[in-house]
């Protein structure tokens, strides 16, 4: 009996890309279903009632959500082309850095796009510090761990290669200074050249238009929050 694998996703979500890249790397066939995250379907809300988010992986009748949880499930269910290293310590290292990048890098980089003044300076500084730590992890390796040993980590952090340049352009800032981050820059170039990655990435123009609107909305949301807080104080 053929197993059925479905992925519910959103076309530019870095979390969804992790799942797509992992399945493609392992040659697992799947059906991709685009969800409108601004107008969530009943199907999505039923499959992920706790978080109401994409990605969702459906494997036969099993539903798994949360991108890192999905990656581990994929690696354990389809063991070919392993994502995680075999050695427990190296595994722990990969998991640690994936978590680190989401917690310390994604939020601050995103924040750098819509904040202003001192808040923007702080967000940028925090982003650079996080990038420096990742640069340190990559040093001396062309891929994390060499020879794709850390596919999990590459897949987890791969979003920086397509999203950071977009955010840089929209907010007129620079994250990935090649002089400051030579290892990340070299890895980024190899990553984006990978045919598997290339065929999944959306057109740059589409990403620019989308995030231009998003950044504007985030700015508006921030202003509304500020006004609400001022009202409460008065």
């Amino acid at each position, binding site marked *: 009996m053929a197993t059925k694998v479905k992925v519910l996703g959103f076309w530019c979500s870095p979390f969804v890309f992790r799942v797509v890249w992992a399945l493609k790397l392992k040659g697992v066939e799947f059906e991709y279903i685009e969800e409108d995250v601004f107008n969530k379907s009943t199907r999505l809300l039923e499959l992920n009632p706790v978080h109401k988010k994409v990605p969702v992986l459906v494997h036969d009748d099993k539903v798994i959500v949360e991108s890192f*949880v999905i990656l581990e499930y994929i690696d354990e269910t389809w063991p070919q082309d392993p994502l995680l290293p075999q050695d*427990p310590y190296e*595994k722990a290292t990969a998991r*640690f850095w994936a978590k*680190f990048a989401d917690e310390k890098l994604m939020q601050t980089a995103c924040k750098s796009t819509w904040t202003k003044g001192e808040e923007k300076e702080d967000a940028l500084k925090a982003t650079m510090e996080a990038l420096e730590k990742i640069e340190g992890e990559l040093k001396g390796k062309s891929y994390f761990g060499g020879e794709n040993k850390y596919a999990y980590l590459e897949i987890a952090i791969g979003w920086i290669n397509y999203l950071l340049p977009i955010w840089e352009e929209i907010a007129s800032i620079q994250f990935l200074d090649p002089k400051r981050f030579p290892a990340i820059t070299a890895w980024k170039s190899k990553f984006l050249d990978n045919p598997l990655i290339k065929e999944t990435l959306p057109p740059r123009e589409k990403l620019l238009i989308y995030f231009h609107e998003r950044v504007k909305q985030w700015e508006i949301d921030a202003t509304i929050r500020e006004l609400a807080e001022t009202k409460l104080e008065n």
Partner: protein
Amino acid sequence: KCKTLTMAEEVKLYGTWSSPFSRRIELALKLKGVPFEYIEEDLSNKSPELLKYNPAHKKIPVLVHNSKPIAESQVILEYIDEIWNNNPILPQDPYQRAMARFWGKFIDEKVLATRMKANFAEGKERELVTEEFFQQMEFLENELNGKDFFGGETIGFVDIVAIVVAIWFPLTQEVLGVDTFTEEKFPVLFKWIRKITEIDVVNECRPPREKHLAYVKARIEDLKSASK
């Protein structure tokens, strides 16, 4: 300190007595009968070892196994389960493992933050966040339904992570004089709390009650005076 450690195997845990993240590592090691050296950290004066072993976050807990440091409590729990595979914490089946990881993440990344907000927010915001807290606890309540523990007949990964709910939540609530997390609302969770706090090894790994009460009282006073 344990005399049965050989030269070949060295396990150290850097933690603090009041941290649920640190205590859960102690519990995992004790459940598996792994001898370890415990080092109490003073977070206002972090040791050079802690800064060396966890430069990215400078936080506890950190497990050091044969000089190799591992940080982030759930990453440490998975590592412990892989190295010492007696009394497994995670199930074998990939889907069951995914469920355990999902609920573990839910507790640490969502429930704890919501609880904090619900305890300290005011007015309308407090109402809304408390409602969110209730919804989150309902999910946990439903996940338990029919089982003794999240792990089934014995405690597992989610139980170990959820001890923060079993011990820290009621204690903080007592200090704050609120009654949002009650047996009336969450009978299944409270039954689980009773069961899990009957387990000897769980009680060996919890902060001593009076000391813990005093500590939480002091921290809340600090928070209140800081916001003035």
